[in-house]
């Protein structure tokens, strides 16, 4: 029996957070949409079957025959995308930048691998719900500050608690690589750029820390060392090492560090100058989570559009690239993630390559590609339907979104206020 559902928006008045969707018990068929798979491929007229929260089948609707489904969704003329992924994010760790009481993104101390972001992740943050209507459905919640800020975890963005949100706990350890040069003076009176005299000692300190941690992990110990304990998994590949570095020299040193320490999976976060050492990255299987695309060149002499072209330079060189958006107002900017990818497409990548930067590639980089990141059968039905091209602001209009097959609310603090005040003025005119 074919049953077409009409999309229904339920506006919950009042100022509560959105209610997480219940487990999906019904099977769903999405028909006719242009499916952007997130792996570079497109199915112009697709058929997507969702059973038990997973993509049971996906294919060309002109060839495949639909089976029996509880819910049929006619999405012809529309687009389906895998849920976008926001790596290296502090969503849910800070609510309002200027309000210190709402800030839980960093700890004191230099080496804190044991500090876990996940337990501070506020699944009910108002910022979280504003990202979903733009297609961002997954995020890697990452601590900040110090040399090793701590351990991240990956969440889906529709949950009652952090526990429910977690899709991969303790996925990676984050490391802020020192800068090889430092600036004398202070921001008001900048002095010369000079070699960071402490660079070598700082790098050494990292090496020593890893040496000790691995020595600890490789031996029997009567006393438990909590931070070293947290370093477990870096050599086995269970955990990824995310190294924040932008300069050429720093990136080269980070790659050497990976090799020396047998780190199985290492990712460069930031990587402004990664394009200059792309062959080295490719050779060593090091992926890059690139700086926010919407940013200015670092130097006066640089190509005005270099930040827009950076992704293409790396992709062309065969490096696995994803986008992240750490920086000013990063939590509220999360919802602009699709437009960062769109801008990369404006400056050289094709649209499907650009899409990979926030879907398939990111899932690979984060190690969740077995379940997320692409529209492939067997993977989680974490996807959404957009009225148009979701990488373009004008047409990023999302009518339905699913996380693990659950149809989530696309309302937010913003849509509620919108309805409320639109209503106010309508009422006044009556």
């Amino acid at each position, binding site marked *: 029996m074919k049953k077409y559902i009409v999309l229904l928006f339920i506006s919950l008045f009042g100022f509560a957070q959105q209610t997480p969707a219940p487990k999906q018990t019904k099977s769903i068929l999405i028909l006719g949409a242009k499916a952007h798979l997130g792996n570079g491929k497109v199915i112009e007229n697709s058929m997507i079957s969702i059973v038990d929260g997973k993509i049971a089948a996906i294919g060309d609707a002109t060839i495949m025959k639909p089976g029996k489904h509880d819910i049929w969704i006619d999405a012809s003329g529309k687009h389906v995308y895998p849920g976008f992924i926001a790596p290296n994010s502090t969503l849910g760790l800070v609510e309002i930048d200027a309000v210190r009481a709402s800030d839980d993104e960093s700890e004191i101390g230099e080496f804190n691998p044991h500090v876990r972001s996940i337990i501070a992740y506020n699944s009910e943050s108002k910022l979280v719900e504003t990202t979903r209507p733009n297609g961002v459905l997954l995020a890697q919640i990452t601590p900040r500050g110090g040399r090793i800020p701590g351990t991240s975890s990956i969440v889906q963005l529709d949950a009652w608690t952090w526990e429910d949100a977690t899709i991969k706990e303790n996925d990676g350890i984050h490391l802020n690589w020192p800068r090889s040069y430092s600036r004398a003076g202070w921001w008001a009176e900048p002095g010369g750029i000079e070699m960071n005299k402490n660079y070598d000692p700082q790098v050494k300190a990292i090496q020593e820390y890893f040496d000790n941690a691995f020595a600890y992990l490789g031996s029997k110990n009567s006393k438990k060392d909590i931070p070293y304990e947290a370093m477990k998994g870096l050599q086995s590949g269970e955990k990824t090492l995310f190294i924040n570095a932008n300069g050429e020299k720093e990136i080269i040193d980070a790659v050497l560090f990976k090799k020396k320490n047998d780190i199985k999976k290492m990712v460069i976060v930031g990587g402004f100058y990664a394009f200059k050492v792309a062959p080295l990255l490719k050779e060593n299987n090091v992926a890059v989570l690139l700086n926010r695309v919407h940013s200015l060149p670092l130097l006066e002499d640089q190509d005005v559009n270099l930040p827009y072209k950076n992704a293409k330079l790396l992709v062309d060189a065969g490096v696995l690239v994803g986008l992240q958006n750490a920086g000013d107002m990063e939590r509220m900017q999360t919802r602009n993630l699709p437009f960062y990818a769109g801008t990369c497409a404006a400056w050289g990548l094709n649209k499907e390559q650009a899409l990979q930067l926030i879907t398939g590639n990111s899932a690979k980089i984060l190690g969740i590609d077995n379940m997320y990141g692409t529209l492939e059968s067997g993977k989680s039905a974490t996807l959404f339907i957009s009225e148009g091209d979701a990488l373009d602001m*004008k047409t990023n209009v999302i009518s339905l979104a699913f996380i693990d097959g659950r149809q989530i609310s696309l309302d937010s603090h913003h849509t509620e206020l919108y309805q409320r005040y639109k209503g106010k003025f309508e009422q006044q005119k009556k």
Partner: protein
Amino acid sequence: MRYFSLVMVFFLSLTTQAQEYFPKNDGVKQSFKNFTAIQNATIYVSATQKIENATLLIKENKIIDVGTSVNIPKGAQIIDAKGKTIYPSFVELYSEFGINKPTPRPSGNFTPQYESSREGYYWNDHVKPEYNAYENLSYDTKAAGSLREAGFGTVLSHHSDGVIAGTGLLWTLNDFGSNADRMLKDKVSQHFTFNRSRFTKQTYPSSLMGSMALIRQVYHDAKWYGQGNASNKDLSLEAFNTNKNLIQIFNAGDKLNALRAAKIGNEFGVKYLIKGSGNEFESINEIKKTGATFIIPLNFPDAYDVSDPYLAQQVSLSDMKFWNQAPFNLKILAENNVPFVLSTADLKETKSFLSNLRKAVTYGLPKDKALLALTETPAKLVNQFDKVGSIAKGKLANFIIVSGDIFEDKSNILENWVQGNRNIIDKINPTDIRGTYDLTFDNHKFELKIEGETSKFEAKAVKDSVNFGTKIQFNDPWVNLVIKNQDTTKANFVRLSGTFVKDMMQGKAVLENGNETTWTATKRTTEVKEDKKKDDKKDEPKVPSMYAVTFPNISFGTAEKPKQETILIKNTTVWTGEKDGILKETDVLIQNGKIARIGKNLPSTGAKVVDGTGKHLTAGIIDEHSHIAISNGVNEGGQNSSAEVTIEDVVNSDDINIYRNLAGGVTSANLLHGSANPIGGRAAFIKLKWGYSPDEMLVNDAPKYIKFALGENVKQSNWGDFSRNRFPQSRMGVEQVYEDYFTRAIEYKNEWDAYKSGKGKNKVMPRFDIELEVIGEILAKKRFITCHSYVQSEINMLMKLAERYNFKIQTFTHILEGYKLADKMSAHGVAGSTFADWWAYKYEVNDAIPYNAAIMMNEGVQVSINSDDAEMSRRLNQEAAKTVKYGNVTEEEAWNFVTLNPAKILQVDNKVGSIKVGKDADVVLWSDSPLSIYTRAEKTLVDGIIFYDLEKEAETLALIQKERAELINLMLDAKNKGMKTQLPKKKENGHYHCDTLGEYCKESHYKYN
């Protein structure tokens, strides 16, 4: 000078300096003063007149006569200066030499100080015209020596501290006298700077524009005070009025600051002597137009040490080019007849002055102009040409004796005479004892060879082809020799001491065993041949070619100032922004900077044709809220109102963000003061004419605006707990600040009206108050408010307040809760200029929603989308497109949010904002729909001039790379040659936001906008 080791001092007339009428208790009075005649010299009596074979006759501190037929009195001391050149000694007009400067006391207290710490003086501690350098002297013989070695005899000293820094004195570098002798004039100059005093914490001024406003207000106040209108005592203003007749010296620095100083000068009829920085050549036309005389520090940048490629990358092309170009500055100033004097100011070491002077001359500064700039011009500027600046009868005996032409590298300054006192730097005719001698003592015969320089001899004693370690000291006529015993294991020496007279040395020898005997050394007649060929012309100085100055003189500047063209854009999609909507396959003709025709198949006669097929042509983006292109401070937060300051004073035409904005399709920007205080500063509306001067960018006939601000920033919520002493600290207080200022502005106007009408009791002229004048303009509806605002309560308050004062607010900017009271805004008639989707950065934006623009528009509010951010401003097309997503705004309306609507809000829509015949040709050609994420701005035109062309980017970047590579090679070469280098320095182009405080930008900005 290069080899001098001793500075010898001749006590020629020790008693000269004791004042005649002073009592003498340490002996008897002596009054005989001898003449000194310096003969056979080449004398530059002035910069342009040279006398060969001349005699200079002096007595005491004066020149008695100079020329070729000077009568030399009997018994006069004679100095033979054959082959030497004598110049008038140099006059330095910009120095802090000999000023006793206390060390500023560091304060651990972070609480801002808003009030002055003084009583009886001006209200602002940074204004201190009452400071007199002559009362704070501490003559520094060491520094004086360095200055004399650089050729100076007379110095104007002052203390460069504070916006008005007090007076300077003119004195000589006379080590022999007291300050009574040295001082030529106790108060010769009054000094201005753009910088705060280091001795007070008073917050105001905290920006360049604040300093400028403060100086202006002082001029007004001083005039008013001088007319006797004040009821209080103000020692600062009294001093300022007294100092008016002195030479006014402005330490401006950078070329743009020089133009700013000149601008203030023009407003008050003052011709400043402007101290520049050495980059005047970059804006030579504007510099020339000021008509000012400049003090140019003879300071050139060292090459950067670029041996580390990662560090070298940080150095900007503009800084590298400046290294190449700076030595040509004086040549260019001279060619353009800009009057200047030269100074040691800003030099790390005074001793590099002469080598820099020679460098400037080698690079094309004519010698006579250099001499003028060091002697006559400065002397005349301080009205002391009767005493110094040339060599003439009756003038002070201040001159230098040089071994040759002072501009030649090999020349040394041998003597520097100050007020008749001889300071020997190098001997004029050093005794040359070099040669080979037969040395005999105690039956030993040695061959003694003396070599080396006349300032430092080296000796070698040889016996039977064996070298003996030998040390020599020569202090004419005394020779000391120490010869080491041949046996190297023993420390036995023969010491010889004797005198040198006519190629013969003799004296006493002390042998190893302590026995004394005599020794002689007779010079052999066969002389060593001099290797003359070596020096011949080999070291002719190479002058590198100068990298052409670009417009502006940084990366992406153009070789020629871009010019207007007649351009026909053919067959494109035109977003008119007018009722015609979007026209397909249409041509647009641009002529004389205007949009001349819109239509199909327009003739291309004479026009440059641009094929617009498949592309979109729109009006340029107008950013209603921008902080790019501003020099040294976007906020004057030193007080809760700063209506007296204006961004128009501080437009920075060299900001790379202008170019980056053009690359994003922005053609004009409203540069706003920040939001640090309820009444901020005045705004500047500019067109992004990259390569043009600040004045050319300003749109003079655009209506004038002022920034107001509400909420967290003005009540200093996020400034830390130590900032709790400025009113207002709550939204309640903000209203009262406005009540206060508007009330005062009304009363101020009434006072003036009454005074002008001549009626009533008001006979005393009211004080002219720039701040209240500006606020009065608002009340008179001649200036418009754009107000930083967030929450509905404060927005409502300001509208009601304005209504009480019978005017309307023109624009609320940010206005993130505008949607909550869009109806009231519409009724008031205020526009809303907002962000597309910003929120959550501070508490007051917790209810900010991206549907704001749509709701406001639907309620009839004029809406624009602005940036407040140098990054976002280059993507305002994307921000506009977001309103299509959030609130279903139509594409044409969305596009107008960044073009026609801001034009209307800024009341410049008669000129810009849409594509309409007769409007300015400020247009952008896009590769795609301007609202598409995939679009690129391909050409950006302002006033019919192409300022950005994507097609040419690759070429430009290749040129940047080429020039960088060339300059890096030149710098490496310089380093290899042993020239001094400096650490690579990254050019900091910070970005201002509403809350950026102080003069400088933070690199990592917190966007609490």
